[in-house]
């Protein structure tokens, strides 16, 4: 089972992901958890460090940004198996992408998310 942590400040992201992956969740392929900020994500990770396989994080969030979260993950949770991190942003400029990859992101996705494409990626991971 693929345990995924989704980090986004928009509350409806949770409902959207739950419905988009309802089949996978029902079939117990994926397990989704949600955090509304970078800080919340870090505290979640400190409790479930080795369980989470994949982190999907928004970059633009009030408070701790996605980049900062990414840096913390790579610094504080670097014991293998380190999680796969995919960054998501509405501003898909090359600068942000470069920065994300430099900070150790495994992938860089732009909003609006192509869920079919994302699903394929996740299945490949699983």
């Amino acid at each position, binding site marked *: 089972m693929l345990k995924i942590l989704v980090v986004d400040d*928009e509350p409806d992201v949770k409902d*959207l992901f739950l419905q988009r992956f309802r089949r996978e969740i029902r079939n117990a392929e994926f397990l989704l958890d949600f955090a509304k900020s970078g800080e919340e994500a870090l505290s979640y990770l400190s409790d479930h460090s080795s369980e989470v396989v994949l982190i999907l994080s928004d970059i633009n969030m009030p408070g701790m*940004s996605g980049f900062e979260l990414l840096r913390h993950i790579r610094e504080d949770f670097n014991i293998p198996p380190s999680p796969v991190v995919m960054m998501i942003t*509405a501003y898909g400029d090359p600068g942000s992408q470069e920065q994300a990859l430099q900070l150790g992101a495994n992938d860089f996705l732009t909003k609006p998310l192509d869920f079919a494409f994302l699903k394929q990626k996740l299945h490949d991971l699983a």
Partner: protein
Amino acid sequence: MNWSDGSSYIAIGIAIAVINYIRKFLDTPKQLPAWDVYLSKVWVLGLVLMTIGEVLPKPWLTWFWLIIFGAVAYTVRQLYHIRPARTLLLAIAPYTILVVIRDVLRFISPDFYKSTKVYFEAGSTFSFFWLITFMLIANNQKKAFAKVQQEREEEAEQRRIIEGKKNELEYLVAERTAEITRQKEELEQTLTELKATQNQLIHSEKMASLGELTAGIAHEIQNPLNFVNNFSEVSIELIDELSEEQTKADRDTELEAELLTDLKQNLQKISHHGGRAASIVKGMLQHSRSNTGQREPTDINALCDEYLRLAYHGLRAKDKTFNATFQTDFDTSLGKISVVPQELGRVLLNLFTNAFYAVQQRQKQGVSGYQPTVSASTRCIDSQVVITVADNGTGIPEAVKQKIFQPFFTTKPTGEGTGLGLSMAYDIVTKGHNGTLAVESKEGEGTKFILTIPA
């Protein structure tokens, strides 16, 4: 009178002298030019009378004197309004009359004349002195008259000069008035142009802030639109799943109910996010629209929240690396306040944009552990709405603080700020809403703008 009588020549000579004296004295060539032509030649009649006297006996000389006297009397009559002329007539009348009576008497009754000759001589002496005296008086009168005349002329001259000066002054005044009127018109023209320019500036400030907003707005609209699209697509999947379930022989009614609940929830979310996008577009239209100046009951908290987000995303769009925390502390008991929403929105947008700019500048200084924070709060204190916009940015130096509300004052690089934002905000709050806009700031610690509006 005849050619051989010497006294005839003397009489003519005296007549010429008297006439000329009178002409000169009364200035007849000027006063009575038409009559003067005859008066000057009246002595010629003496020659005529002398010719007649050759044939006929006396008293022609008497006639001559009567004619001369008549001419003088006629002259005086025409100049009766001149006092010296009357006096002159009075001077010569007794002597002339006496002489005429004497001559007539001598001619008619030489005996009677002889017996009364003594009286006539005494009379003529007396009237001669009379003549001299009155001529002197007349002369004095003439001098006095001339003096009065001169004074009058001087007075008239004076008046003429004064009149001239007055005209000159009036001309100057008219000229000055025309000048001032022209200047006034020029100033009015300039004022009109200035007003037009001011309107254009206000418009361009609105457009500039709209430009700053565009990216923020795009982001803010993109987000709800993504949700609308995603929830629509998911709903189609749900419906597919539902119809698939309904065709099965053993239908999972629990799953069907769950799908239906989710569908309803999704439609509510679509509606919610659609409304979100619509309200952002509405806000944008309000912001760019020329001010209608209409106050309307407005949810101040919602307005603050909307512009806080727009300002944040506006700056984010320009600086991708920028990130800030924003905190809101709204007084939910505030209710709706009567304000001009697009005007107050412009003020809030300006304050928030400045706050985010200040924290961005401080973040660029690269102090470790710095967390850029912008906070907005609303309160109701003493029936006044107090909106506070605070940041922990660079702060404002004391010298700059004095000038921030002045038009065209900006600390931003050329081309980045119009310098009108805060001055317009100040006008909107103080003039438009009878409120106050105060600033508290400490360099290196942060800035707090406190906006107060009567509720």
